[in-house]
């Protein structure tokens, strides 16, 4: 289990987390789904806060971070900026998941180092299906060439 790819889903909206988790499970994305409810929790969850050795970073097998933009305390851009500023998290794929489709929001996200930008959709059929497809892509991409299976 410890070798399984991990997906970190960051959103302050409980409902969206629920829908997203269900969609990923139903789509059978081969990854462990972890969640964070705001920006600060991301760093706590990944063990990046400790400079004094209190926490150890847990970044292994992290296939992708699906990051919402509009969040309290630390918003998505700030999280993105900090992750890209940290040498340890520089190369972790980050996909922005946002309700916004403003061109300037998209552009800013890419400039800050996002790997992709996905606009949240609320279709009545297969809710969250698009997110599952995105996640699958990154998980597949991250799988080592000579995988364990």
């Amino acid at each position: 289990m410890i070798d399984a790819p991990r997906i970190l889903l960051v959103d302050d909206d409980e409902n969206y987390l629920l829908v997203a988790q269900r969609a990923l499970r139903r789509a059978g994305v081969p990854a462990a789904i972890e969640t964070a409810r705001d920006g600060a929790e991301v760093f706590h969850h990944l063990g990046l806060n400790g400079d004094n050795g209190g926490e150890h970073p847990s970044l292994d097998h992290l296939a992708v971070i699906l990051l919402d933009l509009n969040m309290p305390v630390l918003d998505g851009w700030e999280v993105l900026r900090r992750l890209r500023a940290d040498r340890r998290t520089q190369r972790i794929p980050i996909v922005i998941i946002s309700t916004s489709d403003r061109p300037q929001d998209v552009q800013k996200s890419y400039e800050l180092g996002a790997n992709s930008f996905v606009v949240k959709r609320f279709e009545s059929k297969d809710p969250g299906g698009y997110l599952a497809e995105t996640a699958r892509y990154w998980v597949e991409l991250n799988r080592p060439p000579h995988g364990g299976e």
Partner: protein
Amino acid sequence: MSLHAPQAASMHRSKIRRRYFLPLLIALLGIFATTTAWVRARDERVRQMRATFELVAETNRLSISRRIQIYFNAINNLARYWQLFGLQGQDAWRFHTGMVLQSFVAIDRVAWVDREGRSPRYLAQDSTETLDPTFLENAVQHQRSPGAPSVVEVQEGGELQLYFQVRTPEDSVGVLVAEMNPAAVVAGRIPTDSPLLAATVTSSDNRLIYQLGRPAAASPSSIEMKSVIPLPTGSEWTIRYQPTQTYWEAMRSPWPNYFLITGLMLSLALGALAFQFMRLREYSSVLAQANRALDAQVRELQARDHELSRVNQDLESRVARRTYELEDTLRDLETFSHSVSHDLRSPIGAVLNLVAILEEDYGGRIDNEGMRLLGRIRNSAHSAVRLLNELVQLTWAGSSTEERKTIEMTAVARAAFSDAVTSDTDGAKVHFESAELPRALGDPALIERVFTNLFSNALKYTRGQENRTIAVQGREGDGENTYTVSDNGIGFDPEQASRLFEPFRRLHSGGKYEGTGLGLAIAAKIVRRHGGRMWAESDGSNGAAFSFTLPAERSNGNGSVASVVPQEESLT
């Protein structure tokens, strides 16, 4: 300054009086002075002439009367001599008488004859001794007349004959007759070298005795000078002095008249000048008054101008403040609109998603009525999401237009149509006519949105029509191009054309045609942000045409297309 009418009228009259009075006075004074000078000059001329004549006349009168006296005395002396010493012999008589004649050349001839007319003696100036019978006869006749004076004056042919009764010592009584030439008496006494003076000597009975020079014909009698010389015989001679023609003409020079005329004219001119001056003074006073009024007006205007500029400055600062406030409000509004639409999207999206999950996971346990209600919830949430999507678009339709690129309008329109037509259930049957469209300048993504919205609108209102046709055309213009999307749908009421582009405005009832009412508003807003206009035309039944303008692609003088480098835009 305003006056009551009667006051003004009287003032006006006095002004007119003053205007005419002074010039008239000046003119009259001038005329009076000139005329007086002229009259006095003329009088002075006469006076001068008369003074000259008077001097000459008095001198001559004295001279002439003394001469006459001398001649009378001479003749009288001759008579006395004869009376005292007798006639003596013929030779002695002739000698003695000849001496007298020689001394007194004005005595023409002398004769003596006795009472009976006998033994006449006679001697003339020219030494003729032959007695003129007429002369003798006259002498006898005078001698005989009783009570005859001792001297008798007889005018005979211009000569003056004097008869003296003489009783000689020989006791013979006779008469001495002497004949004088008056002209000769006078001659030499009056200056003959004067060209100024004409003198005329006349006797008492107005016979001309002597004339020197020609008097001027026109000379008035006022210039003449007369002097009277009494003769011992009791009669008198009158000498008239008159100016000669030369003198008269010299004295009667036209210059005084010229001066008179010039003076009169000058007076009139002076009067006219004074009149003009008075009028000018009136005008200038009127002008000065007007000037003062103007000055006051100018000052007032300046004050107003000052006030106006102050108000203007105030206004400008207020406008600037308002603009700032407005921009601030606009920013707030956009931020608000943006965040509202985004923040609302998540919960409404959650409703949609949760309904979908409920239907999928628990569909079997919910009866038909429950499923129908869930469907309603889904539709309602779906409408809300679409509305929010369009609200977002409306918000950013107005924001990012700084980036201007050359847009291949034909390609953009086709892409937009294929995008729009996918959401139409019957889209395959729509006939799409696309002409080659001129390129424009703008933000391609936004312009594609314009086309998409116009095509969606056209698709919506052609639904259910026969031969659904949507066409797009473009026309190049001067600086801006016009693009038109037309359809053969149900059209709209032309009177409502201008309201089509208001947000949330739908001209057809919501039941039949879905939509948020924002599509056209978004399109119009994008076009406006690009500096263009959008308008719609319809006759109310046979389709509609939506047109908009965009800045044309700029080209330089060579006709080559200037490439527009998209501005690097840093979005933070």
